[in-house]
């Protein structure tokens, strides 16, 4: 039960679709604060995650709330845009009120071996973020090997990432256990060397409570208890919240639940 509530509190409730509307974002912001009012004592999610154009809407809905606003940027999800556009994208999201920026790296450049380019790009975006925390999406589904995942993690960490994140959610495979483990190891090695903590966000494909708990166990085993808070660990997910809620209600009432009785994702 404690684990399930912890999972809820670590979720970045996400909607990243071309068809997103202010109405959809408003509904999601409400859900972020009222996961399931029929049961008291539930935490809120950690943040909502939206496109830059929707940050303003979310800011208005979440004014003065502990739920943070994360915005994807840098021409998410492909990242195929000139540097100036990416910087402008980021500045816009921050000025609209984003607390966190989820950027994508240039996978094409990375795979072509232009690691300096990738490093410089992350560093430049980090600067554009100002106070906002930066999550760097490696899009591991496009990196082919775990070696590449490790190398990209190291580049992102050294370039100033506050969080490293597996995927955009648009590419399969996304946050597999192996990939997350590899990234957690990169974080641990960095921590052992420098004492600096980096956050981790698996995203995409984690839609069941069981899988989420597996991830938490892995974080505890690899990094330890200090990472077990939404300050340092997040789930990027849209349908995970309802599954966790159903598990909580199952535990509470003893009855198997139906999605009919929970708010829409």
């Amino acid at each position, binding site marked *: 039960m404690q684990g399930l509530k912890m999972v809820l509190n670590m979720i970045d409730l996400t909607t990243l679709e071309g068809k997103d509307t202010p109405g959809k974002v408003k509904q999601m912001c409400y859900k972020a604060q009222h996961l399931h009012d029929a049961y008291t004592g539930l935490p809120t999610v950690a943040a909502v995650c939206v496109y830059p154009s929707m940050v303003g809407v979310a800011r208005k809905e979440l004014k003065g709330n502990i739920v943070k606003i994360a915005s994807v940027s840098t021409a998410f999800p492909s990242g195929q845009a000139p540097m100036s556009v990416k910087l402008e994208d980021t500045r816009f999201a921050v000025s609209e009120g984003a607390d966190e920026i989820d950027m994508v790296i240039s996978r094409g450049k990375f795979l072509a071996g232009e690691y300096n380019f990738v490093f410089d790009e992350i560093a430049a975006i980090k600067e554009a973020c100002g106070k906002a925390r930066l999550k760097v999406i490696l899009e591991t589904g496009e990196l082919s090997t775990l070696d590449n995942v490790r190398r990209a993690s190291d580049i992102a960490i050294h370039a100033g990432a506050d969080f490293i994140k597996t995927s955009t959610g648009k590419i399969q495979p996304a946050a597999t256990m192996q990939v997350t483990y590899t990234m957690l190891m990169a974080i641990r090695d960095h921590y052992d060397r420098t004492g600096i903590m980096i956050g981790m966000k698996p995203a995409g494909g984690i839609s069941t409570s069981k899988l989420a708990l597996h991830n938490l166990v892995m974080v505890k085993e690899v990094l330890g208890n200090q990472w077990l808070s939404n300050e340092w660990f997040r789930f990027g997910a849209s349908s995970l919240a309802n599954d966790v809620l159903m598990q909580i209600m199952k535990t509470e009432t*003893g*009855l*198997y*639940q*139906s*999605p*009919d*009785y929970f708010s829409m994702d």
Partner: protein
Amino acid sequence: MTRLQVLKTYKIFIGGQFPRTESGRYYSLKGKDDFDIANVCLSSRKDARNAVVAARKAFGSWSERSAFNRGQIVYRIAEMLEGRRSQFIEELQLMGLTAANAAKEVDATVDRIVYYAGWCDKYQQIVSSVNPVASSHFNFSVAEPTGVVGIVAPEESPLLGLVSLLIPAIAGGNTVVLVASEKYPLSAVTLAEVIHSSDVPGGVINIITGTADELVSPLVSHLDVNAMTSAGLSKEMASAMQVQAADNVKRVFNYPAMDWSKASSQGLSMIEDLQEIKTTWHPIENIGGATSSY
């Protein structure tokens, strides 16, 4: 040289596949003179839960299929069952029926399936209606499947009884989780193999074996199950079901114990019980100053 006997493993049927129970348990079924007939899965509540998930997933596309196509598929079950006639007769005999009774039971089962196959694209016309109203509306009521139906197989007529509850449910566009009789599970599992080869999409029919004590309660109290049917349950069990079903106000039908070989045990009402009536008020123009005639 004597051959080693190769006995069939009777597995459960969930989402179009034949997994073993997640619990890893089984019970041995005893025949006449206490000899072992087979080992049968002793399913757990988690198997019931998985079956409901599979049934829910299959519900959308099954209920939206054309009625005619549903009829074709149900008819196909009858065809395939006919092809396995001798196997079913053999299994019924293993479970204690005489050869003559077993043959009668299988024939009646095929006939029953064909009967409901015919109903698939006809019950709508009879159950639905156009209603007279006093305003400018075209007002009509149509039948829609109720959703996921849990079925507790009756103890009488091991094959015919369960088919008589199962087929009207799917003919009406519902999806099903069926708890096989603890005493007579063989024909339920073999029926699953027939269903598997009859164009029935995975998840529309799910069959679990084990004890009613353990499996019925998680189904009845499951909030994602919309109705329960059974026949000839004891008064205590039937009323316990009513109580547990109250949480999400599901429909509960415990039919009286009946002679399944009689024609009176089949009928439109078995389909109708598992339908929800949806009424639509469609605004229309008043023509020639007349009020709406219906």
